[in-house]
Each structure stands twice: as structure tokens, then as C-alpha cells.
């Protein structure tokens, strides 16, 4: 009897967690479907897209550039440390360019923005939910998904690639400057390495990944914000869940795109 209980306990816990996860995925899918259907209500979402693009994109540029600049510096220094005596130093340009554009630009910016943008959306919509502002929108004949969710999703898909491409450029520039001033390389050397394996597809790859991260971060923020219950504590929980879930999905997507597109 005890043995059975011991076996059933964890099994039940796993079962409950699986059911709960499946239900969450189902609810997220349902919100996604509602967002697609809400696209036909252009009058409700279109006026708010530019505002959201400014909040999600333009306001995120400083943090994106800050992270990229220091990443570029570190990449150049570590490449030089690794290559010295074994590989020609102009490969520093190759490594900085490829790594920034293909991987670190999109992923580090995505992770940083899951905190800045995702948490902000979850907190804002969560507060609106617990103070009945979402209900108030409904009673005033607004579709809250069209009014609140769609503009954020569109802004995320458009603006994340913009921020990431700027971050890519900043990372490469920072790596270049580091090579010139700290590694005694010349500009032609760095540019030779940068051009060596560069393909324009790499930039598209970076932008596609960034767009998927934008959809993820804004979508997860909207989902947990809308599902908030229980006052200030609930808002805090929704914010934490958003950052954790969107960060995990970003890393999974990162591997997915590498496997599918490279």
C-alpha cells in the first residue's frame, strides 16, 4: 500500500504537471487564434501599432546596443587569445562578424528584451486584468485582443529585427575598434577576415530569428498578462513566468532555426 502510494505520488504529480502544461499550451494557442481573427478589426489595433513600435523597439535600442558593444569587445579579445600563434589574426574579423550576426546579436538581444519588453507587457496587461480594465474594455464594445494584443505582436515582429540588426552592427563595430586599438591589427586585416565568409543570407537569418523572438516575447507577455489573477502577487507571478518562458522558448527557437535554416 505504502509502496503504491510512493509510486503513485510522483506519477500523479507528473501527470498533473503534464495536464497543466498541455492546458497552458492550449490556452496560448486559443489566444493566438483570437489574435489572428482580431486582425480583421483594423480600426481597433491599427492606431496603436506605431506607439507600440516606439515602446517595444525604439526604447529598446540603448540596451541592445550596450549589450552588443561589450559582446563585440569580448569576442575580439577572446578570438585573439585563442588564435595567437596558431591561426592568422585576421580571422578575428571572421569570428566577430559570424558570431555576432548569426548567434549572439539575436540571442542576447532577445534574452535582454524578454526582460525589458516581455515583463513590461505582462505587468501592464496583468494590472489591467486585475483592476478590471480589460473587462471595462469589453463592456465598452472593444475586443481586448484586437485593442491590446495585436498591436504589441505586430510591433514585436517588426521592431525586434530592427533592434537586432543595429545590435549586430554595433557588435561588429566594437570588435573592429577593439582589434585596432587593443590587438594591434589594421583595418584591412580585420575587414579581410570579416568579408572572408560573409554571406548576405546571414543578415536575413539574423532578422528571421529576431522576428520569431519578437513574436515570442510579446506573445508570451500578452498571454501571461491576460491570464493574471490574484492582485499584485498575481502580476508579479505573471511577470516572472513571462521572462522564464520566453527565455526558454528563445533558446529552443535558436536551435530550431540553426537546424532548419543553416
Amino acid at each position, binding site marked *: 500500500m505504502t509502496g503504491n502510494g510512493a509510486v503513485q505520488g510522483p506519477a500523479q504529480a507528473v501527470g498533473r504537471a503534464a495536464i497543466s502544461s498541455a492546458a497552458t499550451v492550449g490556452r496560448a494557442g486559443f489566444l493566438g487564434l483570437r489574435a489572428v481573427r482580431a486582425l480583421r478589426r483594423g480600426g481597433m489595433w491599427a492606431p496603436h501599432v506605431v506607439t507600440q513600435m516606439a515602446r517595444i523597439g525604439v526604447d529598446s535600442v540603448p540596451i541592445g546596443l550596450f549589450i552588443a558593444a561589450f559582446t563585440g569587445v569580448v569576442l575580439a579579445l577572446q578570438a585573439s587569445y585563442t588564435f595567437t600563434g596558431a591561426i592568422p589574426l585576421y580571422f578575428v574579423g571572421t569570428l566577430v562578424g559570424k558570431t555576432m550576426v548569426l548567434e549572439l546579436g539575436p540571442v542576447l538581444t532577445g534574452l535582454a528584451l524578454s526582460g525589458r519588453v516581455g515583463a513590461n507587457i505582462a505587468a501592464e496587461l496583468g494590472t489591467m486584468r486585475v483592476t478590471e480594465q480589460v473587462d*471595462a474594455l469589453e463592456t*465598452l*464594445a472593444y475586443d481586448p485582443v484586437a485593442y491590446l494584443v495585436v498591436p504589441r505582436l505586430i510591433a514585436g515582429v517588426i521592431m525586434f529585427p530592427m533592434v537586432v540588426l543595429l545590435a549586430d552592427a554595433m557588435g561588429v563595430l566594437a570588435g573592429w575598434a577593439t582589434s585596432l586599438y587593443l590587438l594591434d591589427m589594421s583595418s584591412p586585416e580585420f575587414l579581410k577576415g570579416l568579408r572572408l565568409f560573409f554571406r548576405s543570407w546571414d543578415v536575413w537569418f539574423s532578422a528571421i530569428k529576431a522576428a520569431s523572438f519578437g513574436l515570442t516575447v510579446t506573445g508570451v507577455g500578452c498571454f501571461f498578462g491576460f491570464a493574471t489573477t490574484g492582485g499584485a502577487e498575481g502580476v508579479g507571478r505573471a511577470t516572472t513566468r513571462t521572462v522564464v518562458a520566453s527565455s526558454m522558448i528563445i533558446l529552443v527557437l535558436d536551435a530550431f532555426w540553426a537546424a532548419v535554416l543553416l
Partner: protein
Amino acid sequence: MSIVLDDVHKAFDGQEVLRGFTVEVREGETLAVIGGSGSGKSVALKHIVRLLEPDHGEVRVDGRSVGALSENELYEVRRNVGYVFQFAALFDSMSVGENVGMGLRRIPGMTPAEIEGRVAECLRLVDLTGYEERRPSELSGGQRKRAGLARAIATRPKYLLYDEPTTGLDPVTTAVIDELIVRMRRELGVTGVVVTHDMASAYRIADRVAMLYDGRIRFQGTPAEIQACADPVVKGFIEGRPELLEVAS
């Protein structure tokens, strides 16, 4: 035409809140729904505009089953039903004027000048003239409730639903809100449903009072009738005597 909740059942996480709630709100009257905290009064109110859907039973507004309405039909019904939330639910990111004009912007053909005029008219009705540019955070509790009421009446609805309109207010502000509710019926001719546990307020504003207890209507009648009611549950609640409720249960 009227609002009817017919045998409404609603449970949350297996906990039944409404168990066969049936009530009719007649045209032109103000019905006060009273009951203890957590008895399901607000839950019942939310069913009228389909913020919640019943597990069983039906809600009808003007003879139309709310659960069977398409999205556009539902919006049409909601434009006819103003909702005053317990904590006003004003949009923080907007001014008071923008809040009041929100519902008006959903009415096809209304010009910005007409919206501005209607906003000013509604704010005058609730004695908030000149507050258009204020932010909700700059208002007192009573002013927020009045701004919420102005927003609810802006679309000139046939029905007004009030969720605990006087909770948390001082006696003077409570009397002001009560007077506004009476004035809404007198000047605008709206039919009202007021959810409250404030008995003094219910007697002042209601034509009829319905008491919700154990998920269903325990008693309904005029304020005079409920005060004369011998049911210990009703008497215990309206007179604030828990010993009577204990005896009854």
C-alpha cells in the same frame, strides 16, 4: 423589455457560486441585489454582459439570449448596457475625458466634436465638469466612481449595472453616489441593477430588493417588504445579526 437571468449556475474550480439564480429586472426599475461578501452578486452581474458565461441556464437581454449572440450582436447589446465597476476600472493611461469618450469612439458616425460635447455633458451630469484633462490617479475614490459612471452613461444605454457602487466610500460620498443613481433613472430613464451589501443605500435607490443567498434568490420584494420579512436569513442579513443566520443554517 427587460433583463432575465434564468436558472443560472456557475462554478469556479468546482466551487458552485450560483446554483439556479433566477431574477427578472423590469423595464424602468432599479433592482438592488444584496447578499454577503463572496455570495456571487458580482458574478451574476457579469453574466448580463457575457463577461462570464453560465455553466447552465440562460441570460436574456431584451428577449435575446446573450449566450447565443454573435460577436457583433454582443457589441450591440453591450452598447446598450453601461457597467459601473466596483473600483471604477478607469484606464490609467488616459485622461478622464478620454476614458468617458472610449465607448463613443465605437459608435459609427460620431464626429470628434460630438464626442467632446457628449463627454462634457456626461461629466456635468456627475458633477465633474472641468475634469476632462485630469488623470485617474489624480481623483479621489468618489470622483473615480463618478467618472466611471460618466463613462458608463456616455453611450446613453438603456440599462446600467452597478457593481458595489458605494463600497469603501465615506457616508457623505455614499449619499452623493446614491443620489446620482436615482438621478440616472429619473433624468435618463435607465433601468438599473445595483449589486450592494450596503442596506441603507439599497433602501434609498431601489424599487425592489433581491437577496442572494447560497447561490440563489432567497427573497425579493420592495424595500418595505424586505424590512418586514420574517425569514431569519433575510432578517439576520439586513439587520446585521449573525446569530439569526447561524440559527437558520
